[in-house]
């Protein structure tokens, strides 16, 4: 067993995430010059931390210029918070360096694992939800927050299968992690939808079981569709398509419960022109504007 701290008092949204309650976009290297040339009216940009863990060159050049003009969300994909082994201290150090350099308004990572021993698998892999995993994830988040000296946001996962070992359901697991560690929730609405379809759950019931008071940021993305051995719908979180209508509907329901909160349109594959992404961000912005006008 790990020695755990007392549960951290819940933080306000502003303490968890300094991003404005507006729509943002993932910053793609192919769009650097267009962003600087056209200065689109957008709430923030988000980058994958690992892509910027390089010594110098164009990535830092352009991110530095864009950071001068926009709020930034730093989104990690390689920390492997759910790993059975210890966190990679060198990687944590690299994150710290990046955070000091760019002063992002938010830092987020995933409820998943991606490394085992020395091997990095480059995917967000699922966890068995039981007490040992809970203790381990909380200890790792404590370590991250203590090292980075700031709270992090933890993203709910998209998963394709379950573990017989699991004794806690996913929303309850996430609720307990957030209660104990004091981190915030990066509510990925697409992941909620994908997981619920894949595991035959009701998306709204699942959403309402999450610790919505701790939401610091929302992600929206598109999925791919496959079928399993029974021919049932198997949704894959591939960030390769526009946001699905069902996910937009769930997003509206989330906003009614959470209020206006920084919302990212995530697109990593089959990248369209920047204008297409901007139009999708504007669609989210309209819903956020509506949410802001509500009492």
């Amino acid at each position: 067993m790990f020695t755990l701290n007392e549960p951290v008092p819940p933080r306000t949204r502003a303490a968890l995430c300094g991003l404005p309650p507006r729509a943002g976009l993932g910053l793609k290297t192919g769009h650097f010059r267009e962003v600087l040339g056209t200065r689109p009216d957008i709430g923030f940009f988000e980058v994958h931390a690992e892509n910027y863990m390089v010594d110098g060159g164009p990535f830092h050049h352009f991110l530095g210029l864009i950071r001068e003009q926009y709020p930034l969300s730093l989104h990690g994909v390689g920390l492997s918070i759910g790993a059975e082994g210890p966190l990679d201290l060198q990687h944590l150090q690299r994150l710290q360096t990046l955070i000091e350099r760019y002063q992002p308004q938010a830092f987020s990572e995933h409820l998943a694992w991606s490394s085992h021993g020395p091997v990095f698998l480059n995917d967000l892999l699922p966890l068995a939800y039981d007490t040992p995993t809970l203790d381990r994830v909380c200890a790792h988040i404590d370590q991250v927050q203590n090292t980075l000296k700031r709270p992090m946001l933890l993203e709910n996962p998209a998963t394709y299968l379950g573990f017989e070992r699991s004794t806690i359901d996913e929303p309850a697991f996430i609720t307990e992690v957030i209660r104990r560690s004091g981190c915030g929730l990066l509510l990925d609405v697409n992941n909620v939808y994908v997981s619920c379809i894949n595991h035959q759950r009701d998306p709204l019931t699942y959403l309402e079981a999450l610790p919505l008071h701790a939401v610091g940021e929302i992600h929206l993305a598109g999925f791919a569709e496959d079928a399993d051995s029974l021919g049932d719908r198997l949704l894959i979180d591939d960030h390769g398509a526009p946001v699905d209508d069902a996910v937009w509907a769930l997003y509206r329901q989330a906003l009614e419960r959470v209020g206006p909160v920084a919302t990212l349109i995530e697109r990593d594959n089959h990248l369209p022109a920047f204008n297409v992404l901007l139009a999708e961000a504007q669609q989210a912005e309209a819903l956020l504007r509506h949410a802001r006008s509500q009492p």
Partner: protein
Amino acid sequence: MSTQADFSTALLDTRLPCPAGLYSANGADPASRFSVYRNNVQGSLINALADSYPVVQQLVGEEFFRGMASIFIQQQPPHSPLMSRYGDGLADFIDAFEPAAEVPYLADVARLERLRTRAYHAADAATVSAQQISAALADPQTLAELNITLHPSLHLLNSAYAVVSIWAAHQQDTTLAGIDIHQGQHALVLRNGLEVEVFALDHGASVFIRHLLHHRPLLQAAQDSPPFNLPQTLALLIGHHAITDLNNKVSP
């Protein structure tokens, strides 16, 4: 073995069955769900290699490249979450990969592409102005002990093949027609501002620059190199902003 050890091993070795202890809520075969993870891991790593080695892929075709990459991944999975570094060992792997033997220059093209990636992400460094360099070269006293420091992005590659010409031909959809592939070349890779550039040097110039990389004083480096055009080589380094420091102290 732990759950994650089983899972991880079966993700990389596609001949292994789906790990035990998994289930699907609808009762579907967990293997049909596990394969999503396996496809993600395999696909994302192959794509990472394809992004880093575009000319290698063009030379052997996509199908061959993806097949070769999947064997490489099984033998040398990433040991870091930094994908820009993944595939450092691909060139050496290709050297020993029998099915690629009929493209003898493939490994050197991979080496050149790796150097381009390293140059792209190498540390930034302020460069010395052409005027400062001219002044140092014009003063015999200074010149005698002059050391020059080269940009961190600068790398050399000696190949028994026309590696620069082969690589360049694949930047504009041209063919290898007219290239004597067995004409060995000495490649120079550097980042000039934001752009990575690739040049073919003659043997002497390449030896000279290698001496400079090993912190040999300029005159000694020139004297210890096979005949080459010193002014032209210096002009190349100056013109492409490859000189980051001048000093006339004895190097360590």
